[in-house]
């Protein structure tokens, strides 16, 4: 079977690993501890594809029915 790039699939939203300073900014803006963010598994196919590591925060930008674009953050867990 040909291995497809799942990141190019239309149902897979945009995942970006945040840099350290960006994480601090996001957490501060939302007034949350990293553990209070929604989680994403380390063995999630997209996490594997973008090479995120445990403890990283991923910014996910999805198309939204109500708001057009919607941004959410997830903490990578093992």
């Amino acid at each position, binding site marked *: 079977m040909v291995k497809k790039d799942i990141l190019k699939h239309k149902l897979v939203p945009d995942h970006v690993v945040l840099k350290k300073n960006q994480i601090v900014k996001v957490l501060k803006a*939302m007034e*949350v501890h990293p553990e*209070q963010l929604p989680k994403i598994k380390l063995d999630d196919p997209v996490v594997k594809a973008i090479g995120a590591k445990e403890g990283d925060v991923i910014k996910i930008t999805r198309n939204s029915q*109500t708001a057009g674009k*919607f941004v959410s953050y997830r903490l990578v867990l093992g």
Partner: protein
Amino acid sequence: MTGIIKKIAQINFGLLSPENIRNMSVTKIVTPDTYDEDGYPIEAGLMDPRLGVIDPGLRCRSCGSKGGDCQGHFGHINLARPIIHVGFADTIHKILRSTCSSCGKVLLTDSEKEFYMGKIEARIKNEESITDIIKDIYTLARRDDCPHCQQEAEIRKNAEFMIQNSEEILEEIGPDLDADTKKKIEDKVQKLVELEEKRVSSGEMDDMEPNADINAIKDATEELIKVVKDIKGQNDEVTKELQELVEPIYQEAKRAQQRTIQEDIKIDKPVSLVEGNYKLTPSEVREWLEKIPEDDYYLVGINPKIAKPEWMVLTVLPVPPVTVRPSITLETGERSEDDLTHKLVDILRINQRLKENMEAGAPQLIVEDLWELLQYHVTTYFDNEASGVPPARHRSGRPLKTLAQRLKGKEGRFRSNLSGKRVNFSARTVISPDPNISINEVGVPEMIATEVTVPVYVTEWNIEQMKKYIENGSKIHPGANYVIRPDERKIRVYDETKESILEKIEPGYVVERHLMDGDIVLFNRQPSLHRMSMMAHEVKVLPHKTFRLNLCVCPPYNADFDGDEMNMHVFQTEESRAEAKSLMRVQEHILSPRFGGPIIGGIHDHISGGYLLTRDGSVFKEEDVFQMAQKSQLPMPEPKNRDWTGKEIFSLLLPNELHMVYRAEICRKCDECLREECKNDAYVVIENGELKMGAIDEKAFGAFSGKILDSVVKEYGTDRARKFLDSATKLSISGIMKRGFTTSTADEEIPREARDRIEELLSNAEKKVEQLIEAYHNEELEALPGRSLRETLEMKIMQVLGEARDKSGEIAESYFGMDNHAVIMALTGARGSMLNLTQIAACVGQQSVRGGRIERGYRNRTLPHFQEGELGAKASGFVHSSYKSGLDPLEFFFHAMGGREGLVDTAIRTAQSGYMQRRLVNALQDLNVNEDGTVRDNRGVVIQTRYGEDGIDPAKSDFGKVADIDRLIEEMRIKAKADK
């Protein structure tokens, strides 16, 4: 109130050890009697005074506090023999099945044990459930041999002994044997030795089937004995000697090997545990459980810090305090004991007899019988509905309510005392309508107003008023029922106590005065499915016995007046009143968060009234207008000295700067809308608060779709909207009263000529159906893509008959005009639909079961009146008649079939959606929207970074959208035109 939110670290559920039970006990209970002849409780009896007091006059012998303050103290009964606790019989069964009967270890190999312990420890560390692991262990450990047992070592010892002896014997008697036999015996012994060596070297490897080598040894010994037996006749004495020596060793090995095979444990409900064919006594069960090493506790699902498995077999029984099982004294002076006390008496009596018999050395059979009986009593004491046990009964034949029955089910402690409780300051009665009160109000019967009260702090400013209430007492309406002194003593206001209360009352007292006009109360109708099911209303005390409510609040409560009852709760603190007034008032809930439009609004006659009032050509005399304005609580309008049009009257309600355009409910959805030139009066234009054109109907201020009402709430606020709605409904009712409004079956009358046309149309359609069927039988019908011939036929017939019904409806409709009251109701959205009317007047149409024409009934036909395989319209439930002309018996039967399916479906749907709602509510109840717009749970974990992704409150949205741009543009256009 401020509180500290703490996270519960853990909750442990454990077992009481016999030691625990004795420690918490204040006395040992031995006598089955309760009171002596003089009526005093017997010491060491079930009513021992040390178990606590109920009588407020007495002091507790154990804790010294007064009755009522003492919560009671446990006693204990030492059971003569151990008893299995019913609640744990299943657990005991599972544990016995997965542990070794001789060494008590879990029947897992060392590596399996290590593997599962690792898993369990990880789960415990992560605070996760281990139940599925334990379940796996229970399945895997259901082995019939023990991988650990010392029995193995015993066999090994025996085998070694046997080998040694055989060698010795051979040496001793060898010379007497012939070479051949000697060789044979030597071979066998050699094989034994080899096997034993192999076993010793590999014995520690647990991946090997533990009994394989032992079986081999057994086989080898057997062969050896056979050889020895064969020697018979050659040398009798030697053979005998040899046999005598080998035989017992062999027997020992065989027995030892048999013992390692674990018999299957079965449970005979509720508490009997059977090993093979032998019923284990509770003592044996307890001994077995005691053998389980502590290291193995986790593997069978027991936390060693909290419980030991043997505690599931009782040796001592806790006796609950008398406060848990109070006795009742009947009027006759007779004492009636609680069911639990009765059961404890039984237990004590049998326990006593068992002990005596044991001490007297009675036959085993008698002791066992008594033991059984004690087990029965203890079992039913815990659970009198345990399967497999006849329930213990009262003398009257009523089954006793024992411990489990107190907790279980709808009437149990959980569902009726903990999850749901009776509340004070609440009332419930039948509801009825009152069009004269505001939507914010609720009519409260005087009878209720004098019963439920509001606490008022007495101050120097209200003391005179409070004195008046006290003077009125509890019977005359604005009165008071109780006075609470600053020391929190509550005094009932009686005619006799009035005087002294009035003398003493001063600021600092609290008066519980009757409910009065203007008080805020919470009003509720079950099922409380959305937040509008509980709203705050202002009280209006009225005569008679029903709660009165404005008709506009029927939709949010889903109430009608066919006997519906509602509940009312009176707030008891200023905080709750303030909160309710700003968040829960009816006017704050005009817009529903479900669809962003009004859910509170005009219904039924409000709608038809609005239409009658405002339709083109409707004019009123000026004096009538003043009367209507007065009735609707509108400011007196400037006189015009001429007749008023209905539209001018309705404009009195509208805010001055309101601009609107919309298509009314009566709009016929013409292919091309003529807008301002609409012939149906359906294009509504409001300029500067004046209704320029269009009639008022459901789209104006009806519940679910009222556009004007929606605009008024969003532009002018809830207070203005409430006034608008109160006045609009009253004005509509005045309008309908001026014009007169009635309906009857005469409204569904159509002329003969129309009936003939419908008849012709239907018979043509039925003919067409016959033709289709004929074509089908002649196989001339062409199948539609993806359908079988039969399906094609079915679809075509449905289509033909559907069209026929619609056409017949259209014919009937063409004779219906806006002078017809039933039609007004249908088209304005007040009640009923055009379909209802045409079904009454023209043709009812196809009845369906399971989404298709009716096929069920007899074999290959619906009813015996038809031929087998008949497919015609009539034979499959097409109702040709109209409701008004009446259905023939066959039609009636098919109609009943369809109707029944509808009923069943709704019943099932409500049950399903109710459970789904419950699960959703439980999952979402602790979520809230923070000030920063994030949705979080009670631990602060982010569920959504922005509520609904767009942060819009649906109740404040424009029918679900942030804003309706088209509408805004059209309104601006109107405004510009008006300003010109």
